């Protein structure tokens, strides 16, 4: 088993002595995601937020946080960072924002803790900036994507898991996703408010071969309590590719399935 570097031979926490380690160019990239309502995401992207430029503020917060990492993490060395960059990527499928931070230095220890702290605080700042309009935001998937330099050499998350997790966030250099056939599900009016989202994408690999509207409803119901409660209402109407159908109707990969309450125009 790999030894825990911050525990000494007596089992006590200590700061690793790196005095004799070679000075090498090191970098680390980490990411975090923050799920939010599509309206919140749109508000950030169109810069209509009352608190001003959300992303600019969160970016500064991420950079500041990277510099303060050794104050927060007990056994972390203070580092002379040579570069911190914080980037944001809107992901309508999440729906929400992905935060990426890359930290660099020429030094004797790795910088992944700085990158992780940076994305965490940038995500917290996004939350702080938007909490007045969206209290259901969820921060998650905080992880290291890539590490370069040092004794243990280069390491990249995507080379380990991209074959397994189709939808994983790859590194900034290879952020393209493996495309899989999907079914787009849309929600309107009261239902949209109940399920707190405009739409979601279902990977066809998660569904049986024969897909009907009922199968889609079963899949949605199994996702979370919010969807389960909304779909307990059997007066909901459904349209496949913008034509009203009943629940036995077939659904093909690439189709758009819309659910909505009985209509009230006129």
């Amino acid at each position, binding site marked *: 088993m790999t030894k825990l570097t911050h525990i000494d031979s007596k089992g006590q926490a200590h700061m690793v002595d790196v005095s004799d380690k070679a000075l090498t160019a090191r970098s680390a990239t980490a990411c975090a995601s923050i799920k939010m309502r599509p309206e919140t995401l749109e508000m950030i992207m169109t810069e209509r937020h009352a608190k001003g430029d959300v992303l600019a503020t969160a970016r500064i917060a991420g950079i500041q946080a990277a510099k303060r990492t050794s104050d927060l993490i007990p056994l972390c060395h203070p580092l002379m960072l040579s570069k911190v960059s914080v980037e944001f990527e809107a992901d309508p499928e999440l729906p929400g924002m992905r935060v990426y931070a890359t930290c660099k230095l020429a030094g004797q220890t790795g910088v992944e803790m700085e990158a992780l702290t940076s994305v965490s605080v940038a995500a917290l700042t996004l939350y702080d900036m938007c909490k007045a309009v969206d209290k259901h935001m969820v921060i998650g998937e905080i992880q290291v994507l890539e590490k370069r330099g040092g004794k243990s050499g280069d390491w990249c998350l995507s080379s380990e898991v991209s074959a397994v997790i189709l939808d994983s966030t790859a590194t900034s250099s290879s952020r393209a996703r493996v495309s899989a056939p999907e079914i787009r599900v849309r929600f*309107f009016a009261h239902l949209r408010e109940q399920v707190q989202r405009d739409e979601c994408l279902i990977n066809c690999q998660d569904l049986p071969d024969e897909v009907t509207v009922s199968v889609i409803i079963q899949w949605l119901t199994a996702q979370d309590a919010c969807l389960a409660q909304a779909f307990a209402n059997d007066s909901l109407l459904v349209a496949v590719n913008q034509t009203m159908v009943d629940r036995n109707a077939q659904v093909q990969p690439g189709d758009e399935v819309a659910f909505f309450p009985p209509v009230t125009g006129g």
Partner: protein
Amino acid sequence: MIRIRVQPEVFNAGQEIEAITCDRRDVGAVVNFLGYVRDFNERPDVVALTLEHYPGMTEQSLHEIAESAQARWPLHAITIIHRIGRLTPGDPIVLVAVASAHRQAAFDACNFVMDYLKTQAPFWKKEHSRSGDYWVAARHSDSDAVRRWENANE
């Protein structure tokens, strides 16, 4: 001729009738339905409403309703205009204009289009009242109105 428009802007009913009848000598009747926003509905103090719709499907659905009416009666023209977005009491919300050689077909077809629009076209109203906002519930009477056309078909 079928004209379908879904728009936030106000429409001018006079101009729409003019557009149907100009350059024609075979129109004997135009029946026009105009719907307005009321200040009372599910609650007595409605101050505004917001109309949401399903872009793409809405236009397609209105077009299909107009085609069904044309298949059923000898019509010269159908115009359907529905507004979306925020409207206040007194605002016109929907216009259905039907032209035919004789009045009976125009009356019936206009009625038919409104009955189907109310139950098939993907529009939803959220009313804003002094005591809060709520989504308007569908009325059984609207479904019953459609059923009489289906029964008349048999």
